[in-house]
């Protein structure tokens, strides 16, 4: 990767960080409703992962999707507007935080039912296989999703049909409020892939370079027709499961300890130590990102609400 | 020896009848009492029974022939006896065979007023049970639901009940001084579309009078010309009667429930006992006061109306009166009325309540002395203890022959009627 690519990745990470922090504030002001699941602490996973994809590779994820949306190329404006439910949102204000998408950027959502998008991922991969495309479907999900039936059916089918899916588990150690060891039969998620004969790896998810490297390797594997692969990224979310989570299930010092390993900080250290970028340059990018998000908030707040008629549109595709 | 069957006299003033249909054919066996033929009089189509048993040897008239009363129509005897001579009718009694009515006045009991209303079943909250469709149809035709009888489950008024009420509507209330009936049914109907200015010329339509209509016309003309009418009106407090009726009807099955009119018939019967002068007719220079109290009830039939008669109405229980009226009315509507059904009325009643008529005045049915015209029982504002409250009221007007009676007596009769209508338990003891 050259310098500009690195800076671009760094920019994406801080953009996500600022976006999420602003979203949290807006939520507390009552301007964002419903559920809000923040990606703070996990930025290295999606940024590193998606940086490794080719344009024809599809990305689909669960509801902690704002960061993924940015990494796939959606603008902060349309993400923020969607959070505020405005007509200029990427889903016209009808999906909200959990339902961002843009098929033209090969981003297939943002899904709210735990594990339900895994079967969809097998379908996306099936579509590519059927049509002779060499795209890989990158399906991200959390540790909690690995216990639901959908996960098992999807893993099984992806192997039986040899589908081009890269399964990516973001193991942030808690399924909502339940620690992995209280919910999962096996301590390491990747072990579940063994049960399906799917090759797998467990990677440190706080280090973007490690994420990217693992992703590049896995994507090639899958793309070459060897069938599905599982990458388990060990990561941590600094905020609660979603806004309003009292976090009774973990201790404050555990959070603080992980915050010392902030992925943005780790990447900064990498970039500066390898002389790829100066701290000053990185700070500028930081400031720029902050400004971008400020503008995105303004954009979103000044955007119009959806017209009342929009209530009834898109229920069905209008048949010709 | 073969017996000759003649055209029977089916009404005291019947002059001729038309032989509509032979029920038995020549050569068929017949018992005394079996129906031999259907005969149409001015009043109705009536089944005529054979007075002899044996074989029908000869049918002497063709179907559709008008035959004077007393003329031979058939011969019944043993299958093989010789029929020498066929009796010929008396020359004097020969009349035209065509439709125009005989010179004498028509049947005694034809009345111009329409069918006696049978009030509908109400729910415990007082709402009439009727389907939405029936409600709408009734409203469109200006019919008051409360006075229709329902044939649906639970006494619900349904479409067919409104339809039969509509078809039973008379086209004109000839005797009434209220507006022509043509206007009333259209009360709730939509406005007719405006005719276009260049409309084609509209033809007059000539509709022949039925025998029944002619008879009614003759009789009513006679009545108005010759009987000096006077009228007394009275408003009745119907609250207790409505309540009692509701109570009683809880014990009665559908199809046998009492109508308001049933009560009125009995009440009139009892009141007439106290005022025999009104249960009478003029007879030369005397008043003939009838021994029996036979109350007539006007029923609408196709082409006109008939009065069916409840004999001894003063003595019969309400249930019996009700059942008799129901079955006679059904026969009348079907054109199968029996002579007894329409003969012998001593006092007549007519009820237009089902058309939401507030009050009207009837023409006396000759030769009777009086006729009672009844409006609808309705909830209206009334004054009670200095306050205006809702109350049930019904208006009635009696028309009386002034040669027989006078205002005071008629008024007192109406008061006597009130004691029965307003304290209806008196009807039961």
């Amino acid at each position, binding site marked *: 990767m050259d310098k500009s690519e690195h800076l671009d990745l760094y920019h994406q990470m801080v953009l996500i960080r600022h976006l999420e922090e602003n979203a949290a504030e807006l939520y507390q002001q009552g301007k964002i409703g419903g559920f809000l699941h923040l990606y703070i602490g996990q930025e290295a996973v999606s940024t590193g992962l998606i940086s490794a994809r080719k344009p024809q590779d599809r990305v689909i994820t669960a509801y902690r999707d704002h960061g993924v949306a940015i990494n796939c190329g959606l603008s902060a404006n349309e993400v923020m507007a969607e959070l505020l439910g405005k007509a200029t*949102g*990427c*889903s*016209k*204000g*009808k*999906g909200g935080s959990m*339902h961002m*998408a*843009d*098929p033209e950027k090969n981003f*297939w*959502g*943002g*899904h709210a*039912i735990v594990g*339900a998008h*895994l*079967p*969809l*991922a*097998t*379908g*996306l*991969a*099936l*579509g*590519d296989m*059927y*049509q002779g495309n060499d795209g890989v*479907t990158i399906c991200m999900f959390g540790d909690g999703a690995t216990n639901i*039936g*959908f996960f098992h*059916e*999807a893993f*099984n*089918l992806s192997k*039986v*049909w040899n589908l081009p899916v890269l399964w990516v588990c973001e193991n942030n150690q808690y399924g909502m409020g339940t620690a992995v060891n209280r919910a999962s039969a096996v301590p390491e998620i990747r072990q579940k892939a063994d049960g399906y004969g799917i090759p797998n790896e467990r990677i440190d998810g706080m280090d973007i370079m490690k994420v990217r490297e693992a992703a590049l390797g896995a994507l090639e594997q899958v793309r070459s027709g060897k069938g599905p692969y599982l990458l388990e990224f060990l990561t941590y979310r600094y905020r609660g499961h979603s806004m309003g989570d009292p976090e009774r299930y973990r201790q404050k010092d555990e959070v603080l300890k992980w915050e010392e390993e902030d992925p943005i900080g780790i990447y900064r250290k990498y970039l500066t130590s390898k002389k790829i970028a100066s701290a000053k340059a990185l700070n500028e990018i930081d400031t720029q990102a902050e400004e971008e998000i400020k503008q995105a908030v303004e954009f979103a707040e000044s955007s119009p609400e959806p017209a009342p008629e929009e209530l009834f*549109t*898109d*229920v*069905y*595709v209008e*048949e010709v | 020896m073969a017996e000759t069957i003649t055209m029977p006299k089916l009404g005291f003033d019947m002059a001729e009848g038309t032989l509509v249909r032979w029920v038995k054919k020549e050569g068929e066996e017949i018992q005394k009492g079996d129906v031999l033929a259907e005969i149409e009089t001015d009043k109705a189509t009536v089944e005529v029974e054979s007075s002899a048993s044996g074989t029908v040897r000869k049918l002497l008239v063709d179907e559709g022939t008008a035959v004077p009363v007393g003329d031979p129509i058939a011969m019944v005897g043993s299958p093989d006896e010789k029929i020498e001579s066929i009796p010929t009718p008396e020359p004097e009694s020969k009349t035209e065979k065509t439709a125009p009515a005989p010179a004498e006045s028509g049947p005694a009991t034809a009345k111009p007023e329409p069918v006696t209303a049978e009030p509908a079943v109400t729910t415990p909250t007082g709402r009439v049970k009727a*389907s*939405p*469709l*029936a*409600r*709408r149809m009734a409203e469109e035709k200006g019919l008051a639901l409360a006075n229709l009888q329902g044939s*649906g*489950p639970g006494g*619900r008024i*349904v*479409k067919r009940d409104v339809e039969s009420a509509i078809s039973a509507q008379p086209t004109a209330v000839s005797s009434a001084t209220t507006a022509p009936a043509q206007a009333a049914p259209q009360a709730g109907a939509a406005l007719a579309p405006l005719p276009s200015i260049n409309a084609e010329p509209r033809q007059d339509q000539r509709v022949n009078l039925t025998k029944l209509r002619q008879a009614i016309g003759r009789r009513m003309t006679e009545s108005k010309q010759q009987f000096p009418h006077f009228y007394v009106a009275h408003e009745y407090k119907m609250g207790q009667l409505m309540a009692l009726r509701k109570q009683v009807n809880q014990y009665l099955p559908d199809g046998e429930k009492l109508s308001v009119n049933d009560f009125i018939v009995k009440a009139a019967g009892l009141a007439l006992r106290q005022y025999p002068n009104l249960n009478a007719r003029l007879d030369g220079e005397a008043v003939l006061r009838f021994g029996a109290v036979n109350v007539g009830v006007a029923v609408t039939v196709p082409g006109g109306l008939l009065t069916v008669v409840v004999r001894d109405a003063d003595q019969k229980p309400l249930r019996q009166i009700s059942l008799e009226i129901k079955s006679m009315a059904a026969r009348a509507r079907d054109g199968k009325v029996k002579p007894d059904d329409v003969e012998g009325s001593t006092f007549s009643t007519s009820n237009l309540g089902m058309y939401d008529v507030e009050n009207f005045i009837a023409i006396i049915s000759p030769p009777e002395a009086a006729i009672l015209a009844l409006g609808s029982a309705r909830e209206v504002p009334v004054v009670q203890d200095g306050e205006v409250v809702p109350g049930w009221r019904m208006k009635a007007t009696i028309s009386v022959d002034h040669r027989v009676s006078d205002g005071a007596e008629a008024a007192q009769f109406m008061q006597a009627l009130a004691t029965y209508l307003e304290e209806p338990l008196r009807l039961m003891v």
Partner: protein
Amino acid sequence: MTRITMREAISQAIWEEMERDPKVFIQGEEVGVWGGTYAVTKGFYDHFGPERVRDTPISEAVIVGSAIGAAMTGLRPIAELMTINFAFVAMDHIVNEAAKLHYMFGGHFKLPLVIRAVGGGGRQLAATHSQTPDVIFAHFPGLTVVSPGTPEDAKGLLKSAIRSDNPVLFIEHAAMYQSRGEVPDGDYTIPIGKSKIQRPGRDVTIVTYCKGLELSLKAAEELAKDGIEAEIVDLRTLRPLDMEPVLESFKKTNRAVMVEEGWKSYGVGAEISSRIYEEAFDYLDAPIKRVAQKEVPLPYNRTLEQMALPQVPDIVSAVKEVLK
């Protein structure tokens, strides 16, 4: 016109559409090598091959889910559920994903898929294999729910469903595959969302669909002997619902009977009756009666099962009841 069975009609529809459009494929349990548990896809595997006739594991969620995903990429999959009773384990994907993805994402995704499911009872398969839960699916905006009662309708509607860009749940009846009917030759489609008068009449309106149509037609023959002419309106599509022929018929007859194989409570008849009351109240001459399955899980025993299911005499007596 040719007289064929319901099975043949459905089979032909799928075959012809697969021939016509390479994007159409079918997947489900035993659809391939076995030929389909109701023999609907018999011969398909050999002709179209394993890519287009895909045997799946027993995984309804992923049978439907992957069909949704494939549809999102522009394909036209037919996902077969061996029986609609198995739809419950794919419930999320039917009502949360298929029904809603187009709406939730502001129109970004089209889901041109068909989910074929086989429902109905009467073959002693006991309670969990004999249900008619159609209303549950018809409840969800975003889903199209079709259930034909004749081979002609089945073929034409299935073709329309496959060609539709909307997700369609196509419900067949396990005991109707043998039913015969006249079907037009050549390619034809029948529009989704149109009810049809299958038998004209003047005395009462019977509203029904799927198996109920067969029963109602027999009941109408019985009633005709008594001089009662029943008009039968076949819904054919449960969502979107076409009430026009129903209301037109009802305004003529003023009395109606609903016939369905599902349970009465919260059923199709409840919905239709409600709409009739709302939109034709002043034409109502009697309360509307509903003929449906008795409120019990369907038993195994043959006699008991037949007692529980709606039968022709039930329809006849319901009609006579509303005509009182």
